[in-house]
């Protein structure tokens, strides 16, 4: 039996993390079907059909699904569920909101946030903010799974030629209404997928001082992150938060500036390929995960950092 994967999109484009989840799904079973629920999203259906590893796209087109509400998605998924052993989505705010509502209706104990597929019923997942890894085996006949996208490479977006079939809508759930979405627009790379992330913590002392970080981010084409302490202090908005309760990032380069390294922050960044820590407290826990630690006052170090970058002939983008 096959895997049903719930796609995340905005009716125009597939959200890139769906590709990572498709890759994880193909490790569970070769027969991966993707459910696309939206409105006037034919272009998205076509792009999913071209993703390597996708065998079938089920496209449900209805104005009701223009904006995503878990309450409206779930009945459609339940109508399809009998044909599948696994139902899979991303462990981001989309899938986290959706999948437990599916699982409870199917009387299945969900496996959240997997980082490795060991077999079709056994998975590795982080617990306690990634301070322990649990190997878990699901004994339910239907398995509901969310996948941590950054733990899997994206499936190639070409090479597939899946058939696209029309799926049936279900009755809308009237007690819940979508009002609005305020997306924070930025010319920078997205925090979740950026190659380089530079983050500031409480040590930045003010929101205004983040301009020191912005200048370096511009130079490195980096996304800007922050610790929860910096967000709570009002220096920067919550969509920048990296950590257990914020975003999990796995960039090639993570630069932590004025961040002490609380457990909950490390949970969001310690899988990064190369970690740099700049902090004036040499005992700060952030240094225990840093490949390169610089014990220095950030207000001196950041302008120097920019100066040194300006001296380089080339910088990777």
């Amino acid at each position, binding site marked *: 039996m096959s895997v049903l994967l719930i796609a995340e999109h905005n009716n125009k484009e597939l959200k890139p993390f769906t590709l990572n989840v498709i890759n994880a799904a193909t490790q569970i079973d070769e027969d991966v079907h993707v459910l696309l629920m939206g409105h006037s999203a034919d272009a998205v259906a076509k792009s999913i059909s071209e993703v390597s590893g996708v065998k079938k796209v089920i496209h449900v087109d209805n104005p009701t699904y223009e904006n995503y*509400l*878990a309450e409206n998605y*779930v009945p459609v998924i339940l109508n399809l569920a009998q044909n599948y052993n696994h139902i899979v989505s991303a462990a*981001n*705010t*989309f899938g986290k*909101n959706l999948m*437990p*509502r*599916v*699982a*409870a209706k199917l*009387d*299945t*104990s*969900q*496996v*959240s946030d997997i980082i490795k597929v060991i077999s079709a019923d056994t998975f590795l997942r*982080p*617990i*306690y903010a990634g*301070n*322990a*890894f*649990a*190997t*878990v*085996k699901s004994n339910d006949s239907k398995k509901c799974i969310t996948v941590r996208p950054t733990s899997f490479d994206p499936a190639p977006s070409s090479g597939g030629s899946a058939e696209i079939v029309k799926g049936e809508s279900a009755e809308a*759930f*009237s*007690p*819940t*209404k979508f*009002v*609005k*979405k*305020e*997306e*924070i627009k930025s010319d920078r790379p997205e925090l979740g997928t950026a190659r380089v992330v530079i983050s500031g913590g409480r040590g930045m002392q003010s929101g205004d001082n983040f301009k020191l970080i912005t200048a370096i981010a511009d130079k490195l084409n980096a996304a800007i992150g922050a610790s929860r302490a910096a967000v*709570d202090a009002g220096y920067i908005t919550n969509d920048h938060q990296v950590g*257990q309760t914020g*975003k999990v990032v796995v960039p090639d*380069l993570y630069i932590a500036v004025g961040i002490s390294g609380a457990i*909950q922050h490390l949970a969001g960044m310690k899988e990064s*390929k*190369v970690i*740099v820590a700049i902090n004036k407290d*040499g005992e700060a826990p952030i240094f225990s*995960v840093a*490949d390169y*630690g*610089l*014990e220095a006052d950030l207000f001196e*170090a950041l302008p*120097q*950092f920019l100066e*040194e*970058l300006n001296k*380089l002939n080339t910088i*990777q983008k």
Partner: protein
Amino acid sequence: MKILVAVKRVIDYNVQIRVKEDNSGVVTDNVKMSTNPPDDNAIEEAVKIKEAGKAKEIVAITIGDDKAQETVRKALAVGADRGIHVKADGIVEPLAVSKILKAVVEKEKPDLVFMGKQAIDDDCNQTGQMLAALLDWPQATFASKIEVSEKSLKVTREVDEGLETIEVNIPAIVTCDLRLNEPRYASLPNIMKAKKKPLDLMTASDLGIDTKPRIEQIKVEEPPKRKAGIKVSNVAELVNKLKNEAKVI
């Protein structure tokens, strides 16, 4: 209006956890425990709604072993009126927790159920959504702002792209984000008073719920350790290492 708030006792968020030597779980003996942080936000929000005259009663509930009662007492000390402790030992998965909560909701008939968006021990992020499914109620997850009207709530949700606003009819489930509010501390007199507030005791089997786990925990391990890094002496050396050694810039 009546609000039911679910709270969980977990290892304190400041504690560096240790994995048991036999890989059966993490060490919890003699470890500092606290209320799951976003559950504190859930209680705080309920108390604020009551203080604004929009709710009459707040009932705090926890599911867990004998000591889990501490979290209910703490909720009573910051403003909940009444407590419920459903005794259950060992791992109770979110599915079983939501079934217990459903049974309690059917008895207590609250208008709203609040809880934290995620427990910081198992990091599942499931219970609120599952309870909403079992009750066929709306779910407003990851709430950072709640506006209460007579028959509905307007909830601002923290989502990956920014903020989303939805409107849900009452009755509804809300799961709370850490940014929802600043939880208050319990004063000593209120802690003393909380000891006299009513607390009902029951078991999962009293409610007819089987809490046997469906997921087998095969082993729990330490995550792979990062290779020890180096300290650089100045910024020029740092940039040089990033360019020529790590080759990331």
